[in-house]
């Protein structure tokens, strides 16, 4: 997904809309219904609500027009361009214009109004075009979309939630959402904050806890909190360990005796796999923490008070392992929840405490709060 430059968004959750005029192709009730359903696509996955006005200036003014219609971007007759919309903001911004030289229908015998309107509303809310062919925000109209089972792609959801967050209530069921009750959102600056796993990802840092994770990027002081299902709806929650193999732009996610490989938000085919394919003995039931040390091309896996070292070039465990953690990482004497490598240091997380370890000096150089990265 992509956002507009400067990321314009509505600075409120109650957005108004008005159907300024109607196409003669459909009866007004069907047009109303298509517009409402198209707005619901977005309100279902954000805190946004849409209130209809019957007169005056609404945030999103929806109109049908042909050829030149007052915004210097004329439509082009039947086919080609079906409509366009403007990013959030005053006056024409947020508005949706639909080309009435198309044959608008409530099914796909013509151009489906619901589908095109839902796409244009994505622009009205701040989304740019996506290159993901499965995304609603992909610019090409897909007449083969199954309207009876329409749902936003993860790309669309990730995009709109990066602007407005997820709905305050539970996220509406997607194909694979768990049916458990979503527990309270974790408090970012809780002084007892602990993590299930921590990893880098394409220059950002991800801190995982239960069904959530924080994304911390270098250009944002504060981390942003997301639900795992925003990006990885088919993964279980409560990861045990996560590490980024930066040389391959891959992230590996561990839960109990399984692990997945992901690239961005895409799960690689052929996963999950058993951790035993990496060389762990069957006595190991889960991994506590893992990180990749690029300088040595080795990945370190921590289990209770011992650890293994995996050679990412030879794709096998190094000989002479497992070894005692306390022997090779003096000062790291507690059970590790999570770990990652950054700026030449190893960071070990145990409960609400974080140890910064210098692999050259072979000693703990700082003891911090686990959420010290959140600038609380």
């Amino acid at each position, binding site marked *: 997904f992509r956002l*507009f*430059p400067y990321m314009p968004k509505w600075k409120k959750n109650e957005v108004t809309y008005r159907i300024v005029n109607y196409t003669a192709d459909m009866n007004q009730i069907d047009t109303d219904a298509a517009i409402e359903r198209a707005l619901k696509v977005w309100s279902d996955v954000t805190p946004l609500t849409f209130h209809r006005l019957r007169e005056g200036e609404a945030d999103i003014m929806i109109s049908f027009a042909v050829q030149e219609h007052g915004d210097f*971007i004329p*439509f082009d007759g039947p*086919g*080609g*361009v*079906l*409509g*366009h*919309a403007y990013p959030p903001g005053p006056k024409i911004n947020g508005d949706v214009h639909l*080309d009435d030289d*198309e044959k608008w229908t409530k099914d796909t015998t013509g*151009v489906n109004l619901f589908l*095109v309107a839902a*796409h*244009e509303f994505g*622009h009205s809310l701040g989304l*740019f*075009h996506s*290159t993901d*062919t499965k995304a609603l925000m992909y*610019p*090409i*109209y897909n*007449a083969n979309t199954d309207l009876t089972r329409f749902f936003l792609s993860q790309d669309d959801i990730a995009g709109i939630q990066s602007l407005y967050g997820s709905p305050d209530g539970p996220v509406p069921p997607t194909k694979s959402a768990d049916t458990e009750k979503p527990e309270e959102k974790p408090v970012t600056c809780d002084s007892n904050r602990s993590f299930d796993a921590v990893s880098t990802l394409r220059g950002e840092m991800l801190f995982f806890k239960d069904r959530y994770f924080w994304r911390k990027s270098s250009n944002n002081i504060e981390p942003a909190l997301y639900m795992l299902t925003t990006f990885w709806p088919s993964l279980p929650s409560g990861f045990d360990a996560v590490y980024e193999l930066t040389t391959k732009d891959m992230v590996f996610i561990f839960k109990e005796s399984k692990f997945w490989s992901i690239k961005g938000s895409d799960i690689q085919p052929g996963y999950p796999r058993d951790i035993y394919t990496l060389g762990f003995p069957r006595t190991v039931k889960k991994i506590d923490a893992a990180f990749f040390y690029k300088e040595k091309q080795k990945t370190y896996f921590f289990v209770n008070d011992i650890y293994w070292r995996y050679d990412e070039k030879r794709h096998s465990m190094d000989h002479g392992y497992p070894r005692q953690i306390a022997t090779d990482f003096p000062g790291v004497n507690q059970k590790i929840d999570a770990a990652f490598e950054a700026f030449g240091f190893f960071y070990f997380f145990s409960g609400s405490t974080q140890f910064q370890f210098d692999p050259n000096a072979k000693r703990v150089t700082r003891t911090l709060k686990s959420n010290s990265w959140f600038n609380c």
Partner: protein
Amino acid sequence: HPLHPAARAGKMSMDRIQKYLEDFYHLEKNGKQFVRRKDSNPVVAKIQDMQRFFGLKVTGNLDDDTMEMMKKPRCGFPDVSP
């Protein structure tokens, strides 16, 4: 020189191709784009931008896949920011 990309445009008119690249890839609207220019060719660059966006083979030429994509009904908003 390989044939100028526009020469192989086949059924889609030059104007429509130029308008597509102007509308969705910010090709400068100065009308003389299709004149062969020794120094650089903004049309080729914009065709490549479009091919990159749609994950097509980036040739800079108006090959069949590229032409097919240009004909598909779509949203009128640009695919790339200026």
